[in-house]
């Protein structure tokens, strides 16, 4: 079935191209400058596509403090023992090869009136277009008793890197029969099925090393992504190990006590052995500093272009954007970044501009070779990026199909990391 399809005709191409040519945004001897803040799936994809597709006509700088990027996607597979840590780490050589200048520092300030970005190094970058893809930060106070200062005791591991390794070592050294507790986040957050895939992977690990251990999920949501599939998988692969408490059972209003390793559920303190706190989320701080966030803490964007609703010279892609129906995923960030790159090239170089298209698919691994997926395609409407069609794996699928889905996810990881980092 086809949803409402944006019909593309040759006429609309010429129309948009002519419009872009009639009003080129920048003149002058120097090349138009694009600054991209953040080298994750959103920012790195955007920077690479801008440089690669403009054939040197744009001056593209990526601002990213870390020399190497560790993917959150597939970090759960590392927790489950299906991948080694190094396979999650990617460098920026491919971007440099495509012609992107890398500024290995943080962006500390954005002055949208003078179109300048201040860097941690003290340098100032001027831009004609700015792209911001800073990912997420945590909302202060969303889990009473927890702050970033407690992340060494109760890790979030929701930004991949040392936190991910820390969480894994804690699970591995947990006492026999101990309790692993996850405080799950409220919507919206990065990677909707992520917490439940994580639980699956930890259950897989524990089944082998610590079979009497227990997993407790405290969840402020009354339902979650791929729930039927996870519940079926947990029943099949890890019977009796996983307990999920939704808001009606006290999972919503929890307090944590890092000093005593306790969680307080409905006023009752319970001792746990490992506690993974995934707090409520907001756009990465630089978006707020740039004055782009609304009261929800995310950045409203124009669905046709991913440009900020308050400043058409600034594009915000990936997790930080509030665009409508797309989940916050690497797949979405990559998809949005390519639309933004195309629009920016059109504005700055007069290249052809095509209608925006967006897609997403999220794979999750429940147990060895038991993969599931959910996906949708999207179209921009004036209000939001709207889901037009979707699909999801079904409970009770044959093992063969689940295996193929898992293998497909491995192919996807290779494909998307090549697309992001070159």
């Amino acid at each position, binding site marked *: 079935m086809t949803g409402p399809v944006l*019909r*593309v005709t040759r006429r609309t191409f010429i129309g948009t191209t002519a419009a872009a040519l009639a009003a080129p945004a920048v003149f002058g001897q120097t090349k138009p400058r694009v600054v991209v803040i953040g080298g994750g799936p959103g920012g790195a994809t955007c920077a690479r596509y801008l440089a690669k597709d403009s054939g040197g006509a744009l001056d593209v700088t990526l601002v990213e403090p870390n020399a190497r990027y560790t993917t959150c996607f597939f970090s759960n597979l590392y927790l489950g023992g299906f991948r080694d840590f190094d396979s999650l780490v990617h460098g920026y050589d491919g971007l440099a090869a495509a012609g992107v200048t890398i500024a290995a520092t943080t962006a500390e300030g954005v002055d949208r009136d003078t179109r300048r970005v201040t860097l941690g190094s003290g340098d100032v970058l001027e831009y004609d277009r700015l792209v911001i893809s800073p990912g997420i930060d945590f909302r202060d106070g969303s889990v009473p008793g927890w702050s970033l200062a407690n992340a060494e005791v109760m890790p979030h591991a929701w930004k991949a890197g040392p936190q991910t390794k820390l969480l894994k070592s804690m699970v591995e050294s947990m006492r026999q029969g101990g309790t692993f507790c996850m405080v799950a986040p409220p919507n919206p957050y990065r990677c909707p099925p992520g917490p439940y895939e994580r639980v699956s992977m930890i259950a897989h690990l524990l089944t082998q090393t610590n079979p009497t251990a227990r997993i407790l999920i405290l969840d402020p949501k009354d339902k979650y992504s791929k729930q039927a599939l996870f519940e079926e998988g947990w029943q099949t692969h890890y019977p009796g190990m996983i307990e999920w408490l939704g808001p009606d059972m006290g999972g919503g209003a929890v307090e944590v006590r890092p000093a005593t390793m306790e969680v307080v559920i409905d006023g009752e303190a319970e001792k746990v052995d490992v506690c993974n706190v995934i707090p409520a989320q907001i756009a990465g701080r630089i978006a707020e500093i740039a004055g782009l966030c609304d009261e929800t803490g995310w950045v409203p964007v124009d669905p046709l272009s991913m440009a900020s609703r308050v400043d058409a010279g600034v594009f915000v892609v990936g997790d930080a954007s509030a665009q409508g129906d797309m989940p916050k995923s690497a797949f979405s960030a990559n998809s949005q970044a390519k639309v933004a790159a195309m629009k920016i090239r059109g504005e700055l170089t007069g290249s052809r501009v*095509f209608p925006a298209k967006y897609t997403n698919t999220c794979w999750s691994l429940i147990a060895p070779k038991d993969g599931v997926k959910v996906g949708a395609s999207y179209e921009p409407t004036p209000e939001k990026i709207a889901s037009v069609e979707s699909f999801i794996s079904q409970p009770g699928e044959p093992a063969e199909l689940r295996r193929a889905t898992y293998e497909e996810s491995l192919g996807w990881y*290779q494909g998307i990391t*090549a697309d992001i980092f070159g």
Partner: protein
Amino acid sequence: MIRAALVLGMMLTGAATAGPIGDADRGAALFQRQCSACHQIGPEAINRVGPRLTGLFGRRAGSVEGFDYSKSMARMGSDGLVWTMQTLDAYIENPKVLVSATRMRFRGLQDEQARSDLIAFLREWSDRPRDIPEAEPTARRSTPQLSPEVLAIRGDPEFGAYLSSECSTCHQRDGSDQGIPSITHWPPEDFVLAMHAYRQKLRPHPVMQMMAGRLTEEEIAALAAYYAGID
């Protein structure tokens, strides 16, 4: 591209007029002439150049024990392709519609009556032929007629390059094919056929059904042109 247009035109015309089940005797003669060099059927049948065809209906594609299938056929099987009246009809009409890199070297049977006869014969050797529904005119999805003019659209590779950014999240441009097949340098004709088979949900993969389902004719042609000519 012209040949793709003709073949597809026929495929879709066929879909509109599928008649009752064919004549198994005529099908047997046809099998003898066209298929038996490679395939056996019946209780004693064994795998030869092609897999044994006994019990074909309701079987998952690529699932006969001990037969070494092409990667393409194995993939279709794990994606969930099952042999039914409808999928067999499409496969016999033009194997590449369903399985792009099938090892079955068979040009396809364009005559609709001949296909019905052959399928009627194959069906006699399936488990409970009486339980297999007859091909009613409504047994297939009715698909809007695609005129040869629409299908003969010259793809715009520059537009295809933009659209391909949706494909490259999974399908690597350099042609690597771990878990996800390569689409780089795919002959445009096969590309177009395959996308239409996904659109009609003849090919089973849900991601691809969705992706192809929202592509216009012009977009499919553009993508086919781009992927054929990629550096």
